[in-house]
């Protein structure tokens, strides 16, 4: 009999608890945007937090309202991001412009002070300066290319990193990898990114002695560029606002350190 009683008691308690919960649920249930659940299912669900939200579910809620671009998710593949964009009813760049990495050093020929014979990684070379005359110059061992999970960065023949904007997702891993902080994420505008490819903060005269393409802070870009787009501070020009009407050719930078790279291969 004990067995029968125990089963009856357990079943009774279980059913009673279940019934109370069902009754409570009908009063306390929370209506949620169905889009949120659909986006949440598409997301990787690893709650990595790279997008700045605490969980994938919160990101889904923000994306469904169009507060955040699906492109901000660092873990999802681009097909998934497109699907999310379809559900939330806005393209990749909704809420926020997509960002791409740019390399702020364009020194094809680097003046050396000494030979560097240490390990061929930027992180090590940065400790001694890597023998470069420019304290802000690219060390050229490709730590950024190593860090990129999308193979978007390749070193060219003068061992300068080149970013493939088609492949770049703006994840920012290369920004962390560069010991000289030469990489920055810039908003893309009209499928292209304009940037100042130099980080040297020495006075123009000194810069000119060590590098043929270093920014000399002449200020011509501030004068000739669209108003408010460029700014010179700390002996270095910087792009403040990405504008469509910026014409790099018209600015006539004397050292050609303003670059433009486009998402489409040059045609």
């Amino acid at each position, binding site marked *: 009999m*004990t067995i029968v*009683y*125990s089963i009856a*008691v*357990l079943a009774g*308690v*279980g059913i009673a*608890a*279940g019934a*109370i*919960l069902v009754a*409570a*649920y009908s009063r*306390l*249930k*929370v209506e949620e945007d169905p889009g949120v659940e659909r986006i949440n299912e598409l997301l990787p669900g690893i709650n990595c937090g790279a997008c700045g939200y*605490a*969980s994938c579910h*919160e990101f889904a809620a923000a994306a469904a309202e169009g507060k955040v671009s699906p492109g901000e998710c660092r873990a999802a593949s681009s097909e998934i991001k497109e699907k999310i964009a379809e559900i939330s009813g806005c393209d990749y760049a909704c809420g926020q412009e997509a960002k791409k990495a740019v390399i702020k050093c364009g020194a094809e020929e680097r003046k050396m002070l000494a030979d560097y014979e240490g390990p061929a990684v930027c992180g090590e070379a940065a400790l001694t300066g890597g023998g470069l005359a420019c304290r802000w110059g690219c060390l050229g061992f490709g730590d950024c290319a190593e860090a990129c999970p999308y193979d978007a960065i390749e070193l060219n023949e003068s061992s300068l990193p080149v970013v493939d904007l088609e492949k770049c997702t703006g994840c920012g891993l290369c920004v962390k990898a560069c010991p000289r902080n030469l990489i920055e994420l810039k908003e893309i505008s009209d499928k292209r990114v304009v940037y100042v490819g130099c980080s040297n903060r020495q006075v123009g005269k000194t810069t000119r002695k060590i590098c043929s393409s270093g920014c000399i802070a002449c200020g011509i870009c501030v004068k000739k560029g669209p108003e408010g787009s460029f700014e010179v501070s700390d002996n270095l020009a910087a792009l403040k606002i990405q504008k469509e009407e910026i014409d790099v050719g018209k600015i006539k930078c004397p050292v050609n350190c303003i670059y433009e790279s486009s998402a489409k291969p040059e045609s």
Partner: protein
Amino acid sequence: MSLLMILISAVLVNNFVLYYFLGICPFLGVSNKMDSSLGIGMATTFVMTMTALVTWPLYRYIISPDTGLNLPFLEYVIFIIVIASLVQFVEMFLRKYFHHLYRALGIYLPLITTNCAILGMALFMVLRDYNYIQAMVFGFGAGVGFTLVIFIMAGIREELRYAPVPEVFKGAPIALITAGLLALAFMGFSGMIAP
């Protein structure tokens, strides 16, 4: 034992976390921020008090050896069912009315179910043969004790972030050391009231 004694015993002297070492998972998991620790403390207090209120009559009138059914071996299962349903209820309630807290607690909210302090409280209640009012006070006191300790811990850990902790001790090790020191401090109460 008077009600006041039961309350003080559960809150300070025989604190569930620092005396019995029950409920360590949420104690370490949710003690990063003071406001969310207070939230989980209050949710736990509510679940504990309700557990005492619901399980006491269930035990006394259905499964205790004094009744005709005599099914005391069911206490664990029944208690867990009750606790789990209560936690579900709390979760629904918080989601509806305190969405901010619901998100802050995250995974630790359903984990109240597996907080052994609650089951321990229900079992102690049976073991010590409390009457209904005593059981309620005991459950409430246990919850308040848990809240107090987790809140103190969260306060210390918020300060710890700015402390020059040696590299190897950062994170979990220093939290465990802090918990140990806190338990030592609470040992000062021991012996004042028999459990």
